[in-house]
């Protein structure tokens, strides 16, 4: 999205909106299933102005983003160092990997009940769930990134006098930056989908909760507002990571 052919992308979006408008204008489907763009817009304005069920839209979005952000900070602070270490030391990898390989394919909601039992119904169980969901993809990307570093690069650094510790901070970590970015994007996708699911189980705020609650009252306009908002936020987050990647790691995939 938004590459060289961004005009095509914009045209496609415009066409989809036009189709939506046309279908609802001609009343081909029951507005209960597909509300018109105008009523979705009105619902958006109404929620912005008056909030939804006592909390403003900002509070809902903020609650979601706070959970996401906290979980993501924990993921960055744990998955990257552990990935670097276990990529470098085969024994650490042998120690850690069985557990990660076991829980990684499990659907997060399968163990969510346990987390709620252990940590309560508040934010901490949700943050733990999101952390677990995003940890594995980032850890695996970083660990396999370390394995792929050319041996000559490490040898060259040692010949220039790099100690073990500085090898990690000055050579191995920057070498893995491309893999870290890839892992971050995958992990964000995982945590984001899990976030919405988590808010649907036990919560009283957040965009996921708002969508679920609206569906109880057949407010399809509010459901549409929530879904569009979730999608737009995800695209914005991904775009900013890609911008960061392009500006910080311009050498990705190029010969050195």
């Amino acid at each position, binding site marked *: 999205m938004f590459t060289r052919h961004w005009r095509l992308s914009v045209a496609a979006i415009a066409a989809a909106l036009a189709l939506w408008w046309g279908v609802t204008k001609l009343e081909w489907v029951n507005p209960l299933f597909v509300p018109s763009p105008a009523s979705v817009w009105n619902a958006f304005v109404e929620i912005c102005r008056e909030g939804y069920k006592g909390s403003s839209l900002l509070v809902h979005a903020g609650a979601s983003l706070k959970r996401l952000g906290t979980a993501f900070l924990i993921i960055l602070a744990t998955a990257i160092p552990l990935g670097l270490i276990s990529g470098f030391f085969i024994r650490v990898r042998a120690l850690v990997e069985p557990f990660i390989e076991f829980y990684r394919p499990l659907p997060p909601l399968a163990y969510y009940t346990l987390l709620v039992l252990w940590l309560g119904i508040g934010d901490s169980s949700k943050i733990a769930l999101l952390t677990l969901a995003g940890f594995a993809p980032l850890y695996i990307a970083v660990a396999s990134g370390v394995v792929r570093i*050319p041996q*000559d*690069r490490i*040898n*060259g*650094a*040692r*010949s*220039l*006098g*790099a*100690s073990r510790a*500085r090898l990690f901070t*000055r*050579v191995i970590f*920057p*070498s893995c*930056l491309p893999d870290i970015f890839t892992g971050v994007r995958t992990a964000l996708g995982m945590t984001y989908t899990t976030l919405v699911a988590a808010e649907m189980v036990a919560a009283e705020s957040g965009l996921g909760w708002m969508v679920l609650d609206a569906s109880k009252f057949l407010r399809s306009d509010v459901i549409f507002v929530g879904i569009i908002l979730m999608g737009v936020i995800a695209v914005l987050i991904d775009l900013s990571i890609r911008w960061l990647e392009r500006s910080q*790691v*311009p*050498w990705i995939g*190029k*010969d*050195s």
Partner: protein
Amino acid sequence: MTLSGIAITMTDRGEALASPSSPASPPVVSVQGVDLTYGRGKSAKQVLSDISLDIGEGEFVVALGASGSGKTSLLRLLAGYERASAGRIDILDAAAGAPRPEVGVVFQHANLFPWLTIRRNAEFGLLMQRVGKRERERIAAETIAQVGLGDYGHYLPYQLSGGMKQRAAIARTLAADPRIVLMDEPFGALDAITREHLQSLVKSLWQQKRRTFFFITHDVDEALYLGTRIIVLNGSPARIGTDRPNPLSGEADSVTRLRQIPGYAAEREFLLASLESP
């Protein structure tokens, strides 16, 4: 018959020419009866057999061998990336076995740090040796200028051509001021014109820095142009088949000129023959 006759006169002349290390000073590199075997049991493969080699301070030793002849393995032993299966290697009076900043390495591929500018790449070794910032920047700028990249210090490696990257790699190694410089076919992947420029660069750097160079190649002309002494690796496992001073050392200021020297053809014939002997 004529061939060996010429070779002997060449050797005589060569010995008279090449005496960079006085017999009194101990060798900086001493290799005694070294074997190297990769793997164990059935899959074991011996690549080097009974290698013995002393290198004096300031020599430019070129190791000549066909591809797969084990010459890179020999360099990796000297660099400390690999341990000998038998025998003994001493470098600057200490047993080899781990990489160290006194022994610099230039690889076949430039192998620069892609996230650092050329200047920061050149500073890397000094940074690891805890040289102060100002001194570091001064030495790096000076070395980059010496290899002809004075205007490219702020570029990232991917923005440079293959030949320029290799220049930067040489600068990175030399800026750390190693006493021994190991080069593993550094120009193998470059076009002929670029290669000739870089050969002249390496030779002038050797003359300026007065360091010990150990250079690997499969190119006979490169060996004859650069080396003060040439060793030939052949056989499988490889051993040193020929080890003698280069009679053409210092006779020409480029490989093209070298080819016009009277003794060149015979010397080339001799080295090609010893490369092919089993």
